[in-house]
């Protein structure tokens, strides 16, 4: 132990290693966080490119650009890559960068496992993306991979998809365990649980969701694997199984999964809004309890994704009311953010713009979610573009905007430079307009009955689809501006002070900008 400590302390005075080895062998939470974020951004561009293929095909009715089979592969790969490749790794990257600095820890609890959990991800996604070049094509059964589409009728590449999901699951579970261990054991003296920043709280709860449901995902794809290759009949009606069972198990994972993608966003927004309102966060304790309640409720609402599957009346009613119950803690959160801004001395820097847009647009997505929760009405909305509009409103201007807000908010800390505020605001407005032009009309075409995941549509949907496609291209290409802003900020820019935002609070602002390679080797005192 003593030698280990000596070795470590002599190592501490060194900067990062040189060359590619720095990134391959690093156990530094900041390096790993950076790699997670860049990986996530590259997946965001890839998944975005797939989305643009979809929107290009839907620009006009009829079949223009791609074959229907390829269209199906695009919707599937877009969903899988955005969920597992873009949103989740981005939040893990932010957790890696910020949680140790927020709780006054020198690094993550398990740095070597941290390296492993990142480095298996590129392999998982290389394997998933390689299916596009395989005979029979990539997975084409939708990101929800319902059996028997994903078993009996799946292309041969489904096996690669299954193993890719296994690897992603292993990565997420390792990342979650690391975060739990860090938050439990590495807090600076005086950093009690109820003093932790909300980003740390929401990530602690998210990590628990991850270790609870990623094994369920691993289990369900394993059952698929066994059905396909080993002659079992979990989902095969001919052998006594049930395709409906697949949907139950999948959504038992899937609903907590959607909160995995939004709870850290709540934490980010709860850090940024007080900073730019120059007020303390309104209702900190209620925020913590609301997050916990949402997490617990997420386990008992899964069947609202499958109201039309033929459930008894009692089940429809139960899942309808339990789903609506989630609006209560979520409403508490929205109320608290608004109350934080109320009579604050607000300034509108880019992170704040993204956060305010988050609050407004996420709430719109929440309301359309409430509409979908009404079981009798859901029979009309089910599997239409209304559903697409709903979950894109909570995921794009919800989760993705919060990630962008956090990047702008912490970029000065990461790089030591200020980003270009004018370009940042331009990026915000382009994204804001792009997102709404893309997804708002989808509410209307959904209510009018346009089904999702179909490459062609009836003529009456043509105008709204054209508008939607134009918005999608605007939003998609605006993200290249985001790339430019970040690269520019990494290379050069106005020197950032330790605390560039005068209303910001938290331990991360007590260290220099850019944050030194090793921070809090001596734990800070938290009063």
């Amino acid at each position, binding site marked *: 132990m003593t030698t280990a400590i000596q070795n470590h302390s002599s190592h501490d005075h060194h900067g990062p290693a040189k060359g590619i080895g720095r990134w391959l062998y690093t156990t530094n939470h900041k390096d790993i966080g950076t790699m997670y974020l860049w990986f996530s951004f590259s997946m965001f561009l890839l998944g975005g490119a797939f989305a643009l293929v979809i929107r290009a095909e839907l620009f006009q009715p009829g079949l223009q650009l791609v074959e229907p089979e390829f269209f199906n592969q695009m919707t599937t790969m877009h969903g899988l890559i955005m969920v597992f490749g873009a949103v989740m790794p981005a939040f893990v990257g932010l957790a890696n960068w910020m949680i140790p600095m927020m709780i006054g820890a020198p690094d993550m609890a398990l740095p070597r496992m941290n390296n492993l959990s990142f480095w298996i991800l590129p392999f998982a996604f290389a394997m998933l993306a390689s299916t596009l070049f395989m005979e029979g094509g990539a997975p084409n059964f939708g990101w929800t991979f319902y059996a028997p589409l994903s078993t009996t009728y799946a292309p041969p590449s489904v096996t690669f998809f299954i193993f890719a999901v296994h690897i992603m699951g292993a990565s997420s579970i390792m990342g979650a365990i690391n975060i739990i261990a860090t938050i439990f054991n590495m807090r600076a003296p005086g950093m009690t649980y109820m003093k932790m920043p909300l980003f740390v709280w929401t990530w602690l709860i998210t990590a628990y969701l991850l270790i609870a449901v990623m094994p369920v995902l691993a*289990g369900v794809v394993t059952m698929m694997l066994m059905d396909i290759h080993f002659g079992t009949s979990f989902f095969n009606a001919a052998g006594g199984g049930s395709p409906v069972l697949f949907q139950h198990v999948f959504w038992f994972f899937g609903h907590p999964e959607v909160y995995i993608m939004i709870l850290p966003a709540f934490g980010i927004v709860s850090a940024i809004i007080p900073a730019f309102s120059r007020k303390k966060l309104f209702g900190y304790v209620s925020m913590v309890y609301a997050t916990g309640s949402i997490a617990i409720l997420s386990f008992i609402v899964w069947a609202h994704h499958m109201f039309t599957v033929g459930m008894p009346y009692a089940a429809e009613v139960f899942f309808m009311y339990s789903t609506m119950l989630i609006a209560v803690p979520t409403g508490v959160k929205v109320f608290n953010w608004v109350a934080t801004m109320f009579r604050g001395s607000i300034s509108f820097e880019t992170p704040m713009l993204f956060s305010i847009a988050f609050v407004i647009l996420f709430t719109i997505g929440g309301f359309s979610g409430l509409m979908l929760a009404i079981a009798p009405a859901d029979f009309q909305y089910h599997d239409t573009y209304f559903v697409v509009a709903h979950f894109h409103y909570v995921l794009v201007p919800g989760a993705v905007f919060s990630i962008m807000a956090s990047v702008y908010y912490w970029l000065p800390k990461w790089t030591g430079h200020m980003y270009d505020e004018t370009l940042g605001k331009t990026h915000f407005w382009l994204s804001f307009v792009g997102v709404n032009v893309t997804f708002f009309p989808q509410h209307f075409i959904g209510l009018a009955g346009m089904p999702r995941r179909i490459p062609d549509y009836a003529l009456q949907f043509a105008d709204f689809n054209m508008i939607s496609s134009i918005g999608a291209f605007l939003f998609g290409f605006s993200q290249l501006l985001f790339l430019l802003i970040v690269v520019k900020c990494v290379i050069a820019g106005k020197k950032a002070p330790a605390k560039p935002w005068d209303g910001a609070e938290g331990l991360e602002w007590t260290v220099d900008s850019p944050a030194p390679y090793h921070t809090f080797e001596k734990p800070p005192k938290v009063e």
Partner: protein
Amino acid sequence: MNEQQTQVSHLGVVWKSLAVAFGMLVFVFVGLVPLYNLICDWTGLTGRTAGKYEVTDTSIVEDRIIKVQFLANNNGDMPWVFKPLETSVEVHPGEAKTVYFHAKNNTSIEMVAQAVPSVSPFQITEYFHKTECFCFEQQPLQAGESVDMGLQFIVDQDIPEEVNLITLSYTLFDITQVAKAN
């Protein structure tokens, strides 16, 4: 890194977290799946019928007539001819009745089929008993061969008053590949 933090052991929390993750994985296989089947059997949801029924009460309720309809469907591209010889029969509760379904393999290869039943309305699945059914067995047929497959059923004496029509549907699955593998 200061000494105090270095000495914190993370093993406890890591093992506990791994136990949760592993527990959930096991739960999917030994918890969720059996639970789903149990709920289906209890409630009759999905219209699943039980296995072979042993007759305990041979009384017949003469003053009630229940109409039982039969449907036969082929799953996916299953090429066999598959149809009930009678599309509906009328029975008294407690009376054992035998009906036949015709199946013919029109292809030029030997195939194996499995019929999967579903009863509607699903609330009465526990009142619909089969004493013999072709759906209990796999059905192989040579190329061009045909067969009349028997089903003997009894409608329970205690079937709820409001029910006088039952629909029994069979879906025929091609399980040649699976049967070969086993």
